[in-house]
């Protein structure tokens, strides 16, 4: 290792000429072939979305064939039909309430629990709690799905409130894992200084630590948002009242009615995907960096 390193070191030092030539061979900075290849591959992402858009704008008799052609006669009413059929305002509001509730509560509570655990890892009780929560990462949801559905029904939590609660509780395992890792990197000197100034533990957490957690809060917030908004299984088994159905759930419930009316179905799919897609388009970098941080920690 060390010999090859020194060898290349001397090589670079000695011959300054070959280096630019080698670079020149693969293009002056930009590899256009690779760019073209990746752009073509990106079409695989675009095709299903393009297909959804053109289908949502057709009349039913324009369907048939491969379906990739542009609509000859645009029918905007498909969106109105889908809007009415799935009761879009209510459904979207349900999804929004559940997602916002889950994100806000998760950020406020999970970070606090992680803080208490991270700063007391030397105590056996807190260390035990840490492993207790994190071990849930190994318990897949299908295993507890039957009893949880029963339990929430008994407790009258088979509704939006119950769903929010479950997202907050089931998020604990992963969130504590990444929050504690981050909190451990925050020096304790700040808290000690605040404690000497007479701040209580609560005040220290909310005023000193919580603001410092901003990057991790972004990560956890994004991941919770994507999860709660797009989740299908948990709403499917928990929600009993059709009036509190979320957007993915309602697509499932209305499948039988869509069967005869594909354009309205696709309009409905687009409307279900649109809110998060629009947010993503504007907050793209922020979302990607947030997700990356969560996985790398």
């Amino acid at each position, binding site marked *: 290792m060390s010999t090859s390193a020194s060898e290349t070191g001397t090589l670079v030092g000695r011959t300054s000429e070959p280096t630019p030539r080698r670079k020149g061979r693969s293009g002056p900075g930009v*590899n256009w072939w690779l*760019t073209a290849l990746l752009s073509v591959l990106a079409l695989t992402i675009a095709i299903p979305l393009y297909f959804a858009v053109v289908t949502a704008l057709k009349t039913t008799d324009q369907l048939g064939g491969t379906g990739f052609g542009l609509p000859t006669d645009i029918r905007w009413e498909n969106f109105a039909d889908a809007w009415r059929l799935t009761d879009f305002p209510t459904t979207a509001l349900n999804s929004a309430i559940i997602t916002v509730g889950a994100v806000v509560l998760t950020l406020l509570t999970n970070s606090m629990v992680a803080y208490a655990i991270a700063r007391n890892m030397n105590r056996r009780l807190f260390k035990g*709690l840490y492993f207790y929560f994190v071990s*849930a990462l190994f318990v897949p949801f299908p295993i507890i*799905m*039957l009893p949880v559905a029963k339990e929430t029904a008994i407790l009258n939590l088979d509704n939006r409130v119950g769903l929010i609660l479950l997202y907050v509780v089931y998020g604990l395992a992963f969130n504590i894992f990444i929050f504690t890792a981050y909190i451990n990197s925050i020096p304790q000197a700040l808290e000690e200084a605040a404690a000497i100034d007479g701040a*209580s533990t609560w005040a220290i957490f909310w005023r000193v630590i919580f603001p410092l957690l901003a990057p991790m809060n972004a990560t956890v917030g994004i991941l919770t948002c994507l999860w709660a908004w797009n989740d299908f*299984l948990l709403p499917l*088994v928990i929600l009993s009242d059709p009036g509190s159905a979320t957007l993915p759930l309602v697509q499932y419930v209305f499948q039988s009615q869509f069967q005869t009316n594909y354009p309205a179905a696709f309009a409905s799919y687009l409307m279900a995907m649109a809110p998060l897609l629009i947010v993503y388009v504007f907050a793209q970098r922020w979302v990607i960096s947030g997700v990356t941080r969560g996985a790398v920690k």
Partner: protein
Amino acid sequence: MTTQTPVRPQTRAGREEPQRKKGVRLAGAFYLMVLPAFVLFFVFHTIPVIQGVYYSFTDSPGYGPADFVGLRNYIALFTDPRVLHAYWFTFLIAAVATILVNIVALAIAIGLNGRIKFKNGLRGIYFIPNVLAILVVGYIFNYLFSNSLPALAEKLGIDALSTSLLTKASTAWIAIVILAVWQSAAFNIIIYLAGLQTVPTEMYEAANLDGASAWRQFRSITFPMIAGFFTINMVLSLKGFLQIFDHIVALTGGGPGTDTESVALLIYKGGFQGGEYGYQSANSVIFFIVIVGFSIVQLRVLRRREVEV
């Protein structure tokens, strides 16, 4: 520090005292911080786990009284063709999808990490599937597989594809894998990209000077350097795909018959609709053991490889 030896014991004592006092006072607040979380977690996670295990020893249909049947559910599971098929089908999809997702994601991530134009834009496009609901995307793919693809195949004269992939289990699994790869490559690409950015560019420059081929560079530099990211992605992908549910609901609903049921779908259908609450609880317990077992074995193998390279 060392020159202040006489002062040191004083500050030490001065610091220790508030710390001890703080320790006693703070502990109360810390307990309050974790107590509600502990209670809720116990009620909504641990109790269901215990309940699930309890029901697995009963013949409960999901309501009304139930009798204790000992290990009968577990014994029956191992001879139930529907259950065995669901496991086989789940393993097939999970294995193929995990491998394909990681190959595709790694290849695209390496491309995106290259000297390309529109780097951020392309990265943004490749991540889109991760913000979409699998179920909804699945319905779009369902239409593509059952209507567009056969029509396209007919035009091109490919007889093998002229009937929908989704009508037979022997081809439906391919459609399910395609949807799974399309949807999860997005996440894995981002992780690999983060990993690739940790590899110092000097290493490639050095390898270039030594005349190493691109494949050789990948094998000797890139892959060893991102082995940890490879492990994360493999473990997360496999764990996710073993629980596959949404994809199958959207594409086949488990059909034709029960030919494309995954374990998670079988537990759902049997437990909620089929009156097999106790029986499927036993299935859940077995499924749990299988998933934990897989995760441990996989982590062990991949970690050992990481050390070797």
